[in-house]
């Protein structure tokens, strides 16, 4: 989230699209209700189903799963055509006026640079035209034919209301009503907030779904302001923290990335990481990358990371091909290329696409370690549970370890919420039986391996033997010590230019501006610097004071970066530094300083006349309507059909689906077609359950006890399916048998002249826990991911449905 949960109450329009906030995040959704009641806000819901969020919406419109880019590109077209953009904002804070290189183009569904053989792009033409100093050329009058504004205008021109309706199945009148509501927030003092989640990410074009909306928000001047922003509601309680700390195949703490094979030396690595400003004077905060990296290596390896060994640069693994994400990992596993696998609080048997493939792959492992508070399906994949998990244990040679862990109530520590707040929590009781913390278990595995390497040697033991482990209780480091290590400290006295000591050796640091690249500071996660200082544990703060009740609560817990609550808040004020919305200012320039209720994006003394952009992590300091080379499938979003779709791509039939997506051969062979599987299916969560955990909780099992799917009345009638009757739902990959909920909330959509039926598949059931046994939605889902992030396409695929009889008990 760029903004906070409570800040949603400041919105004038709330757009819930690509998510189902009421159902998945009820307690955060209260701020939508607050916006409606206290701020007169309109709630707009765009969703294939009439959801619980839609039940309290002012306007609801249906959309075919997987067509959000067409819808939103049409919105951009509408805003430009009707001139409903916030001109001053767009001119000052976005790259609308920057000029794109000659040679960039888009034709028949492909951008320039496509390489058919590798399904990828040479992205070199997707960039600005630079002047002799290496700065991007600009035309802020937007006359230049290759300025971003004009290229974008041309790109979205095809998305007429007729075309949007033809692709999305959304009735034109509803669509135009929504366009007008969205456009109403182009007024400087009005804001729209975008609330989204997996409904946008779980597509083969997931990242571009979100990008398209971000472009809408930039055009409306809604980023950085109260009641605005792009708000990814996110999933698990600490998914934000795990992303921040970089527990992803190529990631490092604080959004640094591991080196690739093309970066054999520390200097080549630094060259691509240290962004040079693309416009004069811009902050371009990644200029400080070396400070973050060196300080991190000092935290990791202490004295063993030295200038003369490039801070142990070679001790980190280098990445050879893209991501080793879950889809690749299980493809490797299915091919016998992975021997061991550790699932820490993770249940891939339920969570990953194509369950049949997951089950088969796990059976090829030599060993599987499952750390979990609960008895998960993954830890019992080898056991025969009948049709929900058919298995022949005798033929499965995998050694399986089921390790009991503590849960939230039994440990101290921090979670980062979707608004980037780090909140400390306290242990209430001991864990049952012999359950242990993840910290204890990981330490136990590490110490045993370290001893073996110390005693017997083995493959490259240096990083294992030299890993910094200076904890009071090595067998189970105290969370406070780990939190301090992430915050960082001075390793020697830090001095300013005059030689005066600013931070004494050993002291905790106050902020990442104190980090150095000479090995005199250590910090395990630079964006968390300031969270645990000599003033104490800032994450444990509990002062809920909220100036002007504007939803900032700056002294509650601690927010990264630098306790900033609203990202890009510089953009909440106009070029001169006055708030766009004088009723809800965040920061303003008072003539000598930026002051207000939040921590400004950059040094509070930087004058508005210096024209430093609010988007400090971007090299040009501006919000990007044109993404340069950052996206796999193009610098502008384009509508591509889901990999399983009943419709042609009416914009460019030859390029139907994302041309830059990575699809493994066996997964491609498992795609179904619309002849055999004529209906569009989409998976989702129900409010009564959290993923596959709460079926273990009795109350939640009572509230939603049994697997079912949802179909519209028209399709039910066609197929003779009765309310609550049994059905057999199949995809190319598998079959589930469960009950049907025949509902008025799903109606056929008219797509390109054809009625298209959508079937809803809630995800929560499996074969362990207290709820009734189920097959699980991932029995059906395809194994293909977004081209940038490899997030699986759970939201749009093809199925068939037949009436069936109740299974024999």
């Amino acid at each position, binding site marked *: 989230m760029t903004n*906070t949960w*409570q800040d949603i109450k400041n919105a004038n329009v709330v757009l819930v699209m690509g998510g189902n906030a009421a159902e998945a995040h009820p*307690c955060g959704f*209260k701020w939508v209700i607050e916006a409606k009641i206290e701020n007169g806000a309109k709630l707009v819901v765009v969703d294939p189903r009439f959801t619980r969020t839609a039940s309290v919406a002012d306007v609801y419109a249906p959309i075919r799963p997987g067509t959000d880019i067409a819808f939103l590109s049409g919105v951009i077209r509408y805003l430009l055509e009707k001139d409903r953009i916030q001109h001053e904002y767009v001119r000052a804070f976005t790259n609308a006026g920057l000029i794109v290189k000659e040679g960039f183009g888009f034709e028949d569904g492909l951008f320039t640079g496509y390489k058919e053989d590798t399904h990828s792009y040479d992205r070199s033409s997707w960039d600005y035209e630079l002047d002799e100093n290496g700065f991007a050329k600009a035309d802020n009058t937007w006359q230049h034919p290759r300025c971003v504004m004009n290229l974008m205008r041309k790109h979205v021109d095809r998305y007429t209301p007729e075309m949007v309706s033809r692709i999305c199945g959304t009735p034109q009148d509803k669509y135009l009503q929504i366009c007008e509501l969205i456009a109403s927030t182009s007024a400087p003092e009005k804001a729209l907030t975008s609330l989204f989640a997996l409904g946008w990410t779980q597509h083969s074009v997931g990242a571009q779904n979100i990008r398209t909306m971000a472009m809408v928000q930039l055009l409306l001047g809604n980023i950085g302001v109260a009641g605005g922003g792009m708000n990814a509601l996110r999933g*698990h*309680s*600490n998914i934000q923290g*795990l992303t*921040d*700390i970089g*527990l992803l195949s190529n990631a490092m703490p604080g959004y640094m990335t591991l080196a690739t094979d093309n970066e054999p030396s520390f200097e080549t690595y630094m060259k691509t990481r240290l962004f040079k400003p693309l416009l004069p004077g811009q902050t371009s905060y990644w200029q400080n990358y070396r400070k973050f990296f060196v300080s991190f290596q000092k935290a*990791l390896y202490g004295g063993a990371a030295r200038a003369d060994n490039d801070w142990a640069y070679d*001790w980190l*693994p280098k990445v050879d091909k893209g991501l080793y994400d879950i889809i*690749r*990992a299980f493809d*490797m596993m299915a091919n016998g*290329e992975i*021997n*061991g*696998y550790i699932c*820490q609080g*993770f249940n*891939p048997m339920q969570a990953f696409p194509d369950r049949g493939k997951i089950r088969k792959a796990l059976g090829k492992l030599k060993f599987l370690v499952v750390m979990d508070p*609960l*008895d998960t399906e993954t830890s019992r994949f080898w056991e025969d549970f009948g049709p929900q998990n058919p298995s022949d*244990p005798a*033929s*499965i040679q995998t*050694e399986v*370890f*089921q390790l009991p862990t503590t849960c*939230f*109530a039994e440990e101290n*520590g921090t*979670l980062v*919420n*979707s608004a980037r707040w780090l909140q400390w929590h306290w242990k*209430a009781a001991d864990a049952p039986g*012999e359950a242990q913390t993840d910290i204890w278990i990981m*330490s*136990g595995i590490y110490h*045993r391996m370290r001893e073996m390497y110390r005693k017997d040697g*083995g*493959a*490259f033991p240096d990083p294992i033997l030299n*890993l910094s482990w200076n904890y009071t209780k090595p067998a189970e480091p105290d*969370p406070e010590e*780990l939190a301090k*290590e992430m915050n960082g400290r001075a390793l020697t006295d830090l001095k300013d230019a005059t030689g005066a000591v600013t931070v004494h050796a050993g002291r905790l640091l106050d902020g990442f501006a104190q980090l150095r690249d000479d090995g005199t500071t250590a910090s395990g*996660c630079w964006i968390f610097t300031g969270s645990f200082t000599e003033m104490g544990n800032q994450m444990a703060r509990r002062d*809920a004071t909220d100036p002007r009740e504007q939803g900032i*609560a700056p002294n509650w817990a601690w927010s990264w970066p630098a306790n900033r609550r609203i990202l890009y808040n510089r953009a909440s004020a106009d070029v001169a530094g006055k708030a766009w919305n004088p009723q809800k200012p965040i920061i303003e320039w008072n003539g000598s300083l930026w002051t207000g209720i939040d921590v400004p994006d950059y040094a509070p003394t930087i004058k508005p006349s210096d024209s430093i952009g609010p988007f400090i992590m971007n090299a040009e300091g501006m919000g990007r309507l044109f993404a340069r080379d950052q996206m796999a499938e193009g610098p502008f979003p384009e509508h591509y059909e889901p990999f399983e779709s009943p419709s042609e791509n009416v914009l460019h039939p030859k390029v139907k689906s994302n041309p830059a997506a990575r699809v493994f051969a066996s997964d491609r062979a498992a795609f179904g077609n619309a002849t055999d599987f004529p209906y569009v299916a989409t998976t989702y969560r129900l409010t*009564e359950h959290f993923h596959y955990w*709460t079926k273990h*909780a009795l*109350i939640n099992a009572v509230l939603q006890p049994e697997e079912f799917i949802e179909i519209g009345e028209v399709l039910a009638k066609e197929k003779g399916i009765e309310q609550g009757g049994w059905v057999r739902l199949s995809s190319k990959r598998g079959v589930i048998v469960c009950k049907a909920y025949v509902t008025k909330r799903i109606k056929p959509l008219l797509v390109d002249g054809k009625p298209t039926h959508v079937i809803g598949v809630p995800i929560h059931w499996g074969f362990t*826990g*207290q709820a009734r046994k189920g097959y699980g939605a991932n029995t059906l889902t395809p194994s293909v991911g977004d081209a940038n992030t490899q*997030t699986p396409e759970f939201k749009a695929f093809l199925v068939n449905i037949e009436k069936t009889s109740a299974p024999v008990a």
Partner: protein
Amino acid sequence: MTDLSRRGFIKLTGAGLAASSLGALGFGFTGEALAASVRPFKLTHATETRNTCTYCSVACGILIYSLGDRAKNAKSNIIHIEGDPDHPVNRGTLCPKGSALLDIVHAPTRLHFPKYRAPGTNEFKQVSWDFALTRIATLMKQDRDANFIAKNDAGTTVNRWLSTGMLAASAASNEAAYLTWKVARAFGMLVFDNQARV
């Protein structure tokens, strides 16, 4: 009386007889002295601990109530969980999952002991932590030593280990996550992911 049918009247009289006779027989009569009737408030001296809901990333503040006052001889046992009214986001509210956190803490399918399933067998057997961790470390070291890639074909130092992978827990704390990162990367793991996408 107007909508009382003959049939209903008879039915009611029948029921009335049984009930009246019991009432008249006085099974409530001995309780004529009015007793305190409200259920005693169950949290009066329970220990209150502040925590964060384990489910979604709204991260609602919660109050965990446990039996006992943390005296040496009292074993804390969680008896109730409700929302933290001070928390700026949830302001005391909780969703149907958060309101039932007690049932996940005490789920009958919570794991209590390390268990091990040997190749080809059809059961989990309880084992000691030392057995489990030593066996895991041994298997991991064998695999790492056999498959570690120190240099790629071009001779570049790459120091990666691809044949063992890990999924990290997105409900684990930052501190557990950071320690996990350190350990996994010190081994050279790249097949490393979390729930960010699912």
